[in-house]
């Protein structure tokens, strides 16, 4: 019996996971957060301290596969920036297939806050080249991005007339599901002392804590939980009344984690019973 449990057909586990994911997803059960991670609070406080008109650059280095975790982070950050009348530049430094994801969300959230493309925000998109692009933006952004995603020259975009390089940008936020954060930290913080923050997927958090501790980045949004925490903070401050996907995602994540913990506990109980039985026989 115990042996059967230990070698349980994985299709049963798939079924359990399907139920705990689909039910909260279909019912849209929101689970709001009530405690905030230090790393999220630090990023919120940094943006909160900015004066209207300051510039935030957001680099979307993720694709649709990670958008469940990172798109709610982008939405929450945009709400915060636009509500505080900050100007926002969107780029895709490392991943080209998220240009439309970012562009659509920038337009949507900007519209909710009555912001204008050009004076209040702009989207520069993706340019091949990798690391040299990061370095050259430290000297002249227009040398990397002569035009925006609408094929409009940067000199014709009102907000970009006063923004030449990192010196004119108060904060860069890299939302990443790929290995881009070390490049931003090593080259953009290391060489230009640019204030940096990150929003990453859950599995990437542990590798970035040393940079947070060393003060190389001012905050990290940890996965979907980070998005839910940020949503809580901006809603609490009345910056937006739009419900975010972070809180709804927390419902799914919570039920999934409960199921995983139960699965692990269950398999360990079976494992110990089996080991005791074997030692008794021996």
């Amino acid at each position, binding site marked *: 019996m115990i042996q059967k449990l230990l070698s349980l057909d994985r299709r049963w586990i798939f079924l359990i996971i399907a139920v705990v994911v689909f039910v909260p997803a279909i019912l849209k059960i929101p689970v709001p957060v009530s405690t905030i*991670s230090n790393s999220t609070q630090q990023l919120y406080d940094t943006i909160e301290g900015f004066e209207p008109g300051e510039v935030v650059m957001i680099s979307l280095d993720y694709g649709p596969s990670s958008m469940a975790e990172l798109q709610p982070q982008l939405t929450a950050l945009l709400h915060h920036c636009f509500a505080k009348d900050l100007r926002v530049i969107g780029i895709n430094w490392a991943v080209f297939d998220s240009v439309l994801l970012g562009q659509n969300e920038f337009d949507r959230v900007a519209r909710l806050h009555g912001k204008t493309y050009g004076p209040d925000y702009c989207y520069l998109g993706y340019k091949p080249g990798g690391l040299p692009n990061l370095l050259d933006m430290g000297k002249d952004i227009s040398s990397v991005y002569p035009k925006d995603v609408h094929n409009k020259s940067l000199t014709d975009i009102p907000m970009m007339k006063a923004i030449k390089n990192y010196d004119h940008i108060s904060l860069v936020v890299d939302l990443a599901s790929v290995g881009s954060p070390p490049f931003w930290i090593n080259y953009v913080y290391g060489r230009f002392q640019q204030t940096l923050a990150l929003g990453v997927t859950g599995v990437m958090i542990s590798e970035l804590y040393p940079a947070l501790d060393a003060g190389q980045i001012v905050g990290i949004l940890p*996965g979907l939980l980070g998005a839910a925490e940020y949503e809580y903070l901006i809603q609490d401050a009345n910056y937006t009344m739009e419900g975010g996907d972070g809180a709804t995602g927390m419902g799914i994540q919570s039920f999934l*984690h409960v199921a995983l913990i139960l699965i692990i506990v269950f398999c*360990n109980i079976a*494992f110990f019973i089996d080991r005791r039985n074997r030692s008794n026989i021996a």
Partner: protein
Amino acid sequence: MKRQIPIILCSLLGFCLVVRYFIPHRLSQDFESTVNDWVRILAVFAFVIGLGSLIRVHLRRIAMKVSHWQYSIVVFVGLLLMPLAALVDFVKTPNQLASLPANLTSKLQNGPLPATVRQALTEGGLSLPPVVTVESVGKRWKIQEQRQQFATDASSEIITQLDQGKIDRILRQKFSVRDLQLPESIEVTVQSKGRRWLLESGALWYLLIYQNQILTVSRDTTAAYIVGPNPVGSGDLPVYASRKFSKQGSSVNWLFLNVYVPLDATMFSLLAFFIASAAYRAFRARTMDATLLLLAGVILMFANAPLLANQFWHSVFGGLNFLPDAFPTLVKDWILQVPGMAARRAIQIGLALGAISQSLRILLGIDRAWMGE
């Protein structure tokens, strides 16, 4: 010679770039910019080579009819569909951003959009909704659909009656929203959004209840902006259109959002199932090391699930005053910031030393694996 020249080039450029880092002179910066330009150009060619390689591999699969060769046809369909859609979009709407002639800017004033200005904008390629107004906003003019915002004193009794789904006629009448009649002819649905309720009808009306006290109704807005001094000076003014005012990129956007995004997200989502299956088989406390890994994993999962870390924790341990409310989050932060970070730093230092030694080996021509040797 075939081997020596690439190695010499690699070593020379590599050492130059390393030395350049320590010489903040204009000439050295110009050199770096030039190299960066070359890298960007090479990166574009990498895309071209990649595309060529993809086509060659899949053509061969189709020609040789290897197993599952039919999927290669799907690759070509996808490969051709997106550029084709972009081409169609480009032909349909050649100019998204309109330009307003200077002689018409004097006609702008707060209120309805003058017919002559409307005609000029439409001819310029801007797709405008039937009824729009113009409003002076600082140094620019904003063209938008009518925007409405209302506040009401919806009682908590009404709010408690809200439920997911369709709103009934009685509840609709109970809303005492000043200056607003919810559209009778259109179905209004209610959706819970965290601490708010969203009342939606035909994607036009949003009713948001905040903290059971404030009720705000706003109409979804679309807008275009004429950017320029106010009062408007001379010269043609660019018009920045929001997405809903223009149709450019609609086919590509539709394909991206409705085909590519769900496919990519679905592929990645399958990981959850395999992780669960792997956890069942691998997460067993066989040794002390495995037990530590198991405990750290369970604590992180517990703290990353608000249902457990907040709601469950408060209901079970809320009465214990010596434990802080955010205890699971504090434990998680400690694991990440103390033992996790110590291990991570050790790994990163090791990686950095390894990268330095490997780079030196490549620069000195000792390691030639990058040449395919």
